[in-house]
Each structure stands twice: as structure tokens, then as C-alpha cells.
């Protein structure tokens, strides 16, 4: 279980990651951070996603280390392109992202680096929120086919019958950054 001091370290790490993300310029942190913060304030400490936008979780929450943490992240290319992804695992959101980044061998070889953590959440609804967030991130940067986006496959298939539910769950957790682009 994550308690007290560890929780503090956890949030410290998130803030360092967030600061790094903000320094990248046009970053969805700016768009969604305010919403995450206001959700935290209204609902009290709850979700990892909230922690990214505020400090209210520090020292207040108790988490199960055996529970999966879901994250979205952004890889940056010097030419301005981005690769958007999601991952899950155990540990802090930063650790989860870095473990996934380590295995992105080809994208790294192609020059995609400087990974920045976007959002993180836990639990089944957190999973759904991260699914929606990954697709919203892709759409935020212009969508599949945009010269800005290196991804060539959608995060959530256009015909996924749960696509809309993921989208709105992401809105609830992190705020909306892009319109829904699925079919159902």
C-alpha cells in the first residue's frame, strides 16, 4: 500500500514530470490541467488523474501497489512530430511510462524521445478514461494522417462500440481536449 511519505514522493515525481511536459510548449497539460484540478477540488482526493493537476492527493490517499496503473504519454521528435501512447503496469506512473518507453526500440531509433507523462489513473473506470484519453490525444494533435502525428493506427478503433463511453469517461476524469471521432 502507498501511504504517507511514499504518496508524497509519488506526487513530487508527478509534478516534476508535469513541469517537464509544460515546458514542451503546445501540450494538452495546459488544456486539461485546469479541469483535473477543479475535479479534485470538487470531489476530494480520488484518482491518479487528479494528482497530476493538483497536490491534494499528497499524504491523503492509500493505494494498493498490486493494482495496475494506466498512463498516457507523448514521445517527441526533434522535427515536431509526436507519438502518442498508453501503457499500464505497477509502480508510479512515471515508472510505468519509462518501462514502456524502454521497449519502443524502433521509435527511439527513429528519433522519438523526450517522453512526457500525460495522464494516469487506476481502476476499471480509470482504464476506460485512459483509453479515451489516448484517442483524444491523437485527435488533439490532428488525428491519424496528420503530419504532426506519427501514429498510424487509432488508439480506439473507429468501430469500437465502447468508443463513445471511453470518450466521455475521459472527459469526466481529465476534461475534454478533442471531439469524438468514432462511429458508434
Amino acid at each position, binding site marked *: 500500500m502507498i501511504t504517507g511519505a511514499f504518496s508524497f514522493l509519488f506526487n513530487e515525481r508527478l509534478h516534476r514530470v508535469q513541469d517537464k511536459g509544460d515546458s514542451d510548449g503546445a501540450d494538452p497539460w495546459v488544456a486539461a490541467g485546469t479541469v483535473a484540478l477543479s475535479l479534485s477540488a470538487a*470531489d*476530494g482526493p*480520488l*484518482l491518479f488523474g487528479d494528482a497530476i493537476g493538483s497536490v491534494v492527493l499528497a499524504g491523503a490517499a492509500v493505494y*494498493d501497489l*498490486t*493494482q*495496475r496503473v*494506466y498512463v498516457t504519454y507523448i514521445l517527441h521528435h526533434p522535427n515536431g512530430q509526436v507519438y502518442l501512447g*498508453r*501503457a*499500464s*503496469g*505497477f509502480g508510479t506512473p512515471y515508472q*510505468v511510462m519509462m*518501462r*514502456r518507453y524502454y*521497449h*519502443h*526500440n*524502433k*521509435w527511439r531509433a527513429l528519433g522519438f524521445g523526450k517522453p512526457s507523462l500525460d495522464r494516469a489513473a*487506476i*481502476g*476499471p*473506470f*480509470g*482504464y*476506460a478514461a485512459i*483509453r479515451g484519453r489516448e484517442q483524444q490525444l491523437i485527435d488533439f494533435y490532428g488525428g491519424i*494522417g496528420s503530419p504532426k502525428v506519427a*501514429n*498510424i*493506427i487509432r488508439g480506439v*478503433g473507429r*468501430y*469500437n*462500440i*465502447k468508443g*463513445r*463511453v471511453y470518450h*466521455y*469517461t475521459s472527459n*469526466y*476524469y481529465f476534461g475534454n481536449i478533442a471531439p469524438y471521432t468514432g462511429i*458508434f
Partner: protein
Amino acid sequence: MIKSKEEIEFLKDWINEINEFILRNEISEKTMEIGTWFIKESKRAIEEAYRNQNIRGLRCAFHDTNEMAYAMKQDNVNRLNRVLKSKFGFDLNSQNKKDLVKIKAIVDRGHIKTNGEYYLIKGRIDALNGMDGHEEEMNRLDRLMTDYELSKRNNAKY
């Protein structure tokens, strides 16, 4: 045709069973609003796909729902597995084994053919990301994913 109908019934029942379990066991005071909404809307989407006999949609939701089940606390995953086993005769682990057979076939082939296979590999990488000792497998799967993405990019017409 009969086989498809049976599969559609099974997919609907399986997904609903997991949704019901999550509703009963994973909703706290803090997740009440989003949780109840999420389950209600998921059920609506499943019912609609069932009415339209949308087997591809249900298969996709089946895969996603199984993935989502692993987001629960480990105790609840174990309890859900017992519920599934008693109702269907198999559980999430059995489904994982089936996926592994498909994944092995893709790895042996050496390349991904469809987006469905891509999402399957992506899910496997996601699962392995939380475990030690699977670095080589992750590297191999990631290479398959990236090769597929790059090949699609080279063939893309925007």
C-alpha cells in the same frame, strides 16, 4: 450461422457478467457517479450490438472488457475468475491462453496482418509491461507493432 448466434449470446452474457461484477464490487462513493453511468452506457452499447447482431463489435468489447477486468484489485480479479468459472466453465486466464495461441501464430509468421492483430499485440505488451522477465518478448512484440505501423504509413494515402 448457428455458431455465430451462439457466440453472440456468449459474448453478451460474458461481458454483462463482468460489468455486473464491477458494478457490485468496484464502485465506491467516489466513483459512484462515473461508475454507474459507465456501466449503464456500456450495457446499452452491448444491447444495441446484440440487437444488430454486430459480432465484430461484441468481439471487440469482449476483448476490452477482459482487459478492463485486470484493472480491478487483485482480490476482485480472483473472485471474478471464480464467478466466471462457475458460470461459463472457464475464466479470464483461459481467455488469456487463447489469446496467447493467436499471438504465437503472429510471432511465428513474423508480421502483423490486420489492425485486430495489432490491438491484440498491443494488449499483450501492455500486460507484460507490469511484469519482470519478459524483456525479450516485449522487444519482439514491439518490433512487430512498429513494423506494422511503419508499413501502413508507407502505404498510406491521405
